[in-house]
C-alpha cells in the first residue's frame, strides 16, 4: 500500500477523532432516540400510539424535547400516575428526544453531525443504508464510509480498505448531542 494512501486513512481517522468545540446556539436534544423509541414502545404506545404516523393524538407531541412537561404530566395526570417510579429521568429524557426526532436513529444523528463537522471528508451528504451488520453512509466524493456496528463507530477508506474503529457510539453521540444533533 503506498505511503500516500496509508497517510490518507490515518489522517482521516485522526481528523474524525479530534475534539471540537460545540455550537453555542444549538438546541440540545439530551438523550438517545434509540433508547427513547424502545421505552416509548413499552410504556406509552399502548395508550398514545406510535409517532410520527399517529397524528390523531397531537397532544403527545407536546412532549417533544420537553422532558419537564412529560414529568409533570406523569405526576399530575391520574391516568399516567402508574408510570411514577417506573421511568427514570434518563428514560424521560430519551422519550422527549424520540418524540422530537421520531424518524431518525442515534447513528444518523452522529452521521449528520459528522457531515456538518467534516464537510470536506464526508461529502457529498449521503443517506444511510445497511450491509454486513453495519448501518452506514458512503461518501462518494472521498470514497469513505462511516458506519456503526455493535455499539462502535467505524471509518472505512474505500480506496485502501483501511478500517478504523473510532470508539463507542455513546461517546460520539454525546458529541453530536452537544452540537445540537
Amino acid at each position, binding site marked *: 500500500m503506498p505511503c500516500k494512501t496509508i497517510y490518507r486513512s490515518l489522517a482521516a481517522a485522526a481528523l474524525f477523532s479530534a475534539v471540537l468545540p460545540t455550537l453555542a446556539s444549538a438546541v440540545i436534544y439530551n438523550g438517545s432516540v434509540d433508547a427513547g423509541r424502545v421505552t416509548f414502545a413499552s410504556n406509552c404506545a*399502548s*395508550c398514545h*400510539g406510535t409517532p410520527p404516523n399517529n397524528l*390523531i*393524538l*397531537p*397532544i*403527545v407531541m407536546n412532549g417533544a424535547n420537553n422532558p419537564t412537561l412529560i414529568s409533570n404530566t406523569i405526576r399530575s395526570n391520574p*391516568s399516567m400516575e402508574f408510570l411514577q417510579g417506573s421511568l427514570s429521568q434518563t428514560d424521560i429524557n430519551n422519550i422527549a428526544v424520540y418524540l422530537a426526532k421520531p424518524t431518525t436513529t442515534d447513528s444518523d444523528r452522529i452521521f449528520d453531525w459528522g457531515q456538518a463537522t467534516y464537510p470536506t471528508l464526508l461529502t457529498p451528504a449521503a443517506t444511510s443504508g445497511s450491509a454486513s451488520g453495519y448501518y452506514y453512509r458512503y461518501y462518494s466524493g472521498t470514497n469513505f464510509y462511516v458506519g456503526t456496528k455493535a455499539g462502535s463507530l467505524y471509518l472505512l477508506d474505500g480506496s485502501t480498505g483501511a478500517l478504523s474503529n473510532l470508539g463507542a457510539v455513546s461517546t460520539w453521540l454525546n458529541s453530536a448531542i452537544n452540537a445540537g444533533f
Partner: protein
Amino acid sequence: MKRFSISLLAALGIGSAHAVTTGDAMPHMALPDAKGKVQDLGALHAKAIYVDFWASWCTPCRKSFPFMSDLQRRYADRGLVVLAINVDAERKDADDFLAHYPAGFTVLFDGKGGTASQFGVKGMPSSYLIGADGVVRNVHMGFREETPAAIEAELETLLK
C-alpha cells in the same frame, strides 16, 4: 355562556387544544358505521350515551371492549347507547381488532381523527358519559381495574 362558547369552538374544530371535560356540551359528531352509513349523533335519542375512543394498537382497549359489550347489554332497555369510535387510519387494522375482540355495541369510524381532535382526546381509550341533554357528565382516560365500577356508578346516577 362561557360553557356554550367553548363547546361551540370545539364543535367547529377551532382551538383543538381544548379537551372536552365534565360540563361541556358533546361536540357534534357524524361518522360512518361499519356499513358506511353516516350516523349523526345529534339525532340520537338516548337517556345516556357512552362514547369511547379506541384504536387497534390500544392494549387497554382489549379489556374495555368486553366491559362495554356487557354495559350495552345490561343497560340497553334503560336507554343507554354505547358508541365506540375507532381512530385507526387503516380500516383493516380496526377490522382485525374486532375479529379478536367482538363489539356488542355500535362502532363508528374516525380514520382522519377529526372527531377525536374535537374531543381533545389524549390517550386511548378515552370515554365520555353524556346525558340526554348532550352534556358530558364524566370523562375517563385509560382503563384500569377500578374503571368499570366507577363508570357503572356514574351511569346509575345518570339514569336515576
